[in-house]
């Protein structure tokens, strides 16, 4: 238990590095490490959404080819991010771009799968009546399928977000110093630094979940909301 308190102390107070010569710990350093972590995670998740959601909507709307696309992206999921990074080093070197690509590939499968499934699960009657009202294909996607699939899509985004935030800890191996640095460099930061960084990453993942959960509630169409007060009355 004292290890845990040492780690908490590391988050709030600066101290000499066990290897000598550097000052480590404290909120200032944690923030310095957290900012690139957030930038990297945010960029990766944003790009993954921009690719996976339209693709999933289109595949789900057409109702064909989805199986192949989803399986292809799921196979990609089995390749460890570290291997992807090492693979891209030969072509684009190390750094922000390399890591972003690797994390985007990690983030796409859950979002794509959930978007596709979400659209496929939309009640066919709703789609048929939308068509009967004279909506075009694009209108059906935008006004019927997307809103009804939103809860599942958000579920995918949340899964990906937690994956990305956790995996961004390998970034210091490829040119970006994130919260993974104290986890990788135990000689410099000490055991308490390693545990402290792990705690901060875990908190960050939880915070991401909470924020995205709130966004999901705000984005869900009123008709789909399970409003507690209404349910009671």
């Amino acid at each position, binding site marked *: 238990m004292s290890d845990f308190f040492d780690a908490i102390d590391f988050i709030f107070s600066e101290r000499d590095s066990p290897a*000598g*010569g550097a000052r480590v710990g404290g909120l200032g350093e944690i923030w310095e490490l957290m900012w690139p972590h957030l930038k990297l995670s945010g960029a990766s998740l944003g790009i993954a959404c921009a690719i996976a959601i339209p693709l999933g909507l289109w595949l789900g709307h057409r109702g064909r080819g989805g199986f192949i696309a989803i399986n292809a992206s799921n196979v990609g999921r089995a390749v460890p991010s570290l291997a992807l990074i090492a693979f891209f*080093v030969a072509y684009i070197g190390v750094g922000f771009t390399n890591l972003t690509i690797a994390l985007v590939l990690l983030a796409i499968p859950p979002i794509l799968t959930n978007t596709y499934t979400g659209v496929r699960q939309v009640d066919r009657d709703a789609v048929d009546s939308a068509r009967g009202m004279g909506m075009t294909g694009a209108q059906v996607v935008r006004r019927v399928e997307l809103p009804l699939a939103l809860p599942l899509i958000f579920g995918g985004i949340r899964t990906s977000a937690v994956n990305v935030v956790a995996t961004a800890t390998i970034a210091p191996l490829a040119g970006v110093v994130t919260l993974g640095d104290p986890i990788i460099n135990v*000689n410099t930061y000490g055991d308490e630094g390693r545990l402290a960084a792990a705690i901060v990453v875990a908190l960050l993942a939880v915070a991401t979940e909470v924020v995205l959960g709130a966004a999901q509630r705000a984005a869900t169409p009123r008709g789909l909301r399970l409003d507690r007060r209404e349910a009671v009355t």
Partner: protein
Amino acid sequence: MRKHRWLMLLALLIAALAVAGCGDDDDSGNGDKGSSTGSSGDQAGIQKNDKNSSTKITVGSKNFTEQKVLGEIYAQALGAAGYDVSKQLNLGDEKTALKALEGGDISMYPEYTGTALLSFFGYTADKLPTDPDEAYDLAKKEFAGKNLTAFEHTPYTNSNEVAVTQETADKYSLKTISDLEPVAGKLTLYGTPECRQRLDCLLGLQKVYGLKFKKFTPVAIDLRHEVLSKGQADVSIVFTTDPQIFKEKFVLLEDDKQMFPPFNSTLVARNDVVDKAGPDMAKVIDMVDKGLTDDVMQELNARVDLDKQTPEEVAGQYLKETGLVG
């Protein structure tokens, strides 16, 4: 029907051969077959002493090429002297190796003086002696406190080095690390993630040499040569005995202010084993260590990492080429 059966038999035979072939590769890849070789009848340098066969020695090493080669060399040399040798050549990092040694799972393993002082004995990089002998004496004293004997250090050192490509060296006429000072602002430095805050790495280059690089980029340790040869890094931190230095014709800049602490290898053994083994052991280790210079170690590493030979084969070649084992 009969013809089919013949075909099937043939196919089976081919499959079996293929599997056997793969199996061989795997074994040699580990370089860890348990029992040792050596103990050949013909002795040029190391004399076989039958009395030694009552002493059991387990040689250990950490889990990278140079350590495995060293472990094999010591194991085969001690085997040639008649000791009952077994091997445990894949022990992970230094902390695991030390634990195995203190617990008696292994009798000895080679460690670097700098690593021992930094990692085992709580010295910070700025407190390390820059002289190899002083560093060794200090490590020896510390090991003695743990009932361990540190044998005389090898001539070679495996410390951090500042490497540039031949073109970069020519372009800015670089020979020493100090030569980097006027141009560092234009150059990117790549090193392990640890490097950023280490006194024997970026921090030291900033403090001791006053270098301000354009940018420092952390990379995984195994990318240290690739970033340089692919042109991403202008300057990269490598290790003295890396065989890639020779292959890629990198230029190592001289540490003219003696900032990098010495990392000579010293064989660390349990006192009880040393006492039981008698005088032959120290003699053998001394004979083996003498030939291990920077160039020799780089060559031995190259045979494993670049030529894909096993540490076991390479160790045998070393003992033969130096005339220690006939």
